[in-house]
């Protein structure tokens, strides 16, 4: 935004890497990044558990069992306890995971696509089109993301699809900024000028020449966007404007957990812990990918 002060994108990113990381091939550097591996394992475990877990449990997500309400975890028939209606918490967590992870991945795909298109166009054409687009990005970024999210979510009828759209609408700006910056510098490079000189179309130049060269930062931003999308969905659902009960999502499971905090704290502890695990997983993974794919960003030299 400013001519003098470095923006967040220009400051060295806070990353963690082995000292000699820059001299290793990408894959080995990635494998050595234990936190990234932890993230990847956590994500795989969560995805597999959410996909298969509910089939293995004797309880349905909506099976109400009023005789066994508020069963504490780790004792009795419900592994993670049961809620105010006697529903099994573990099964609900896994099913909620399906929704929350789906929203996370779908919103990531959508926001990345929007961000890439806007960033490509703005960076490629520059001029007043580029300025106008990037000012628009700046303007949307001046709203705190949650304000924007809630404004949209409160006014549109809530559902998995609308929440995905809304989360994506509040998360595309960073991708656009990254892509715009990269494209603007890449299109001055020899290979881009050469391609332009032999007369390829703008679309070819953008999609076939420039885009492949900026895949690394896009993949990193997309991974971090999954984390962000899961978090945003949980905020909206927690505040009652996201996924609506009885469909469980990690956020809305916490919706009325606060009133049972004294009597049944596990209802609040477990869903939040799973959100934290998932989001941490994607953040670690994104960070590791950044180290692996883009050694130039390595601040540790």
């Amino acid at each position, binding site marked *: *935004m*400013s*001519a*003098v*002060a*470095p*923006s*967040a994108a220009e*400051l*060295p*990113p*806070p990353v*963690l890497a082995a*000292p000699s990381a820059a001299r290793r091939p990408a894959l080995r550097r990635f494998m050595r990044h234990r*936190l990234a591996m932890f993230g990847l394992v956590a994500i795989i475990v969560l995805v597999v558990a959410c996909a298969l877990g509910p089939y293995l449990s004797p309880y349905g997500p909506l099976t109400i069992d009023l005789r066994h309400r508020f069963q504490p975890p780790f004792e009795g028939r419900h592994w993670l306890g049961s809620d105010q209606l006697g529903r099994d918490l573990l099964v609900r967590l896994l099913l909620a995971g399906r929704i929350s992870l789906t929203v996370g991945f779908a919103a990531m795909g959508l926001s990345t696509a929007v961000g890439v298109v806007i960033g490509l166009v703005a960076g490629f054409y520059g001029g007043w089109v580029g300025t106008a687009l990037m*000012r*628009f990005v*700046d*303007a*949307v*970024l*001046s*709203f*705190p*993301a*949650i*304000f*924007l999210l*809630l*404004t*949209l979510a*409160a*006014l*549109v*009828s809530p559902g998995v699809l609308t929440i995905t759209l809304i989360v994506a609408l509040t998360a595309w700006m960073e991708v656009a900024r990254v892509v715009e910056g990269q494209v603007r510098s890449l299109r001055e490079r020899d290979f881009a000028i050469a391609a332009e000189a032999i007369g390829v179309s703008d679309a070819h130049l953008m999609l076939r020449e420039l885009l492949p060269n900026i895949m690394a930062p896009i993949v990193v931003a997309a991974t971090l966007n999954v*984390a962000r999308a899961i*978090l945003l969905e*949980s*905020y909206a659902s*927690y*505040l009652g*404007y996201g996924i609506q009960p009885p469909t469980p999502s990690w*956020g809305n499971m*916490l919706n009325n*957990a*606060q009133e049972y*905090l*004294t009597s049944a*704290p596990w209802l*609040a*502890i477990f869903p*939040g812990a799973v*959100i*934290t695990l998932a*989001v*941490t997983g994607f*953040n*670690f993974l994104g960070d590791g990918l950044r180290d692996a794919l883009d050694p130039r960003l390595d*601040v*540790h030299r």
Partner: protein
Amino acid sequence: MTRYVLHRLGQSLVLLVLVSMIGFGLLHLTPGGPLSQFALTPGMSAATLARLSHQMGLDRPLPIQYAEWAGHLLRGDWGRSYRDQQPVLAIIVSHLWATLELMVSSTLLAIIFGTWVGVLGAIRRYSLADYLATIGAMVGLSIPTFWFGLVMIYLFSVWLGWLPSGDMYTNGDASLLDYARHLVLPCLVLTLVTIATWSRYMRASMLDVISQDYIRTARAKGLRPRAVLIHHALRNALLPMITVAGLQLPTLLGGALVTETVFTWPGMGRLFLDSISYRDYPVVMGLLMFSALLVLLGNLVADLLYVVADPRIRLA
């Protein structure tokens, strides 16, 4: 300098106009609208609804509604709440202080401890402490704020019984101590939002400075390591952090909204949620504008402070 200030002011103004258009467009193009609130009132007829819509000016074309709203805003009139006809600006200001108290106290905490953690991480790079701080910052960025709030309430209010679980005051108790006890938990929770980012950038900035020639020179001429660290390195490493502080503002405001909800703290975040669920458009719009104004102003001040604080920067 004057030209630079004017240039940045102009930029911010353009952004503010864009922000107002986006906000207004979002609010008024979404289905539902403020009338859906009245539509639920028993005995409401279609004719009355149409008359209400006309009275509130909602039946006119959007650009005209926007122009009128913006015109009033320019004259200092932020409109009136649909709910109780109070002036919007007065409502916002009455909720502003509670939010500011939360934001300022948590920012101070985050800066003090974040700087300490960041500096420690930079001078003992790859030590166990640095490693733990890195992991801690990443986890801190990943924890949902509202859940962290719930856990804190469980630990300190339910389990230990040390601190109140919400609100700003105990009824009938106006002492400072009572207020402080209410502030502790929300402040801690909001600190989590910023301290992770702050400590990471602080560490990166410190690492950058430590590798500079003037630090080597200072060390080579035999200054005590501590003096080099504080007087030479830290002072310079803190400079870019001014910008980081400015850029953190949207996150901080958003975090305040969530924190206020968990702790029933009577600030702008609570006001925002209440107004949204009541479809009180003038207040929602006012809050969107107000928060954008705070953010843009924060960035502007940060950029200007940066120029003032760092005499090496010459403005063209």
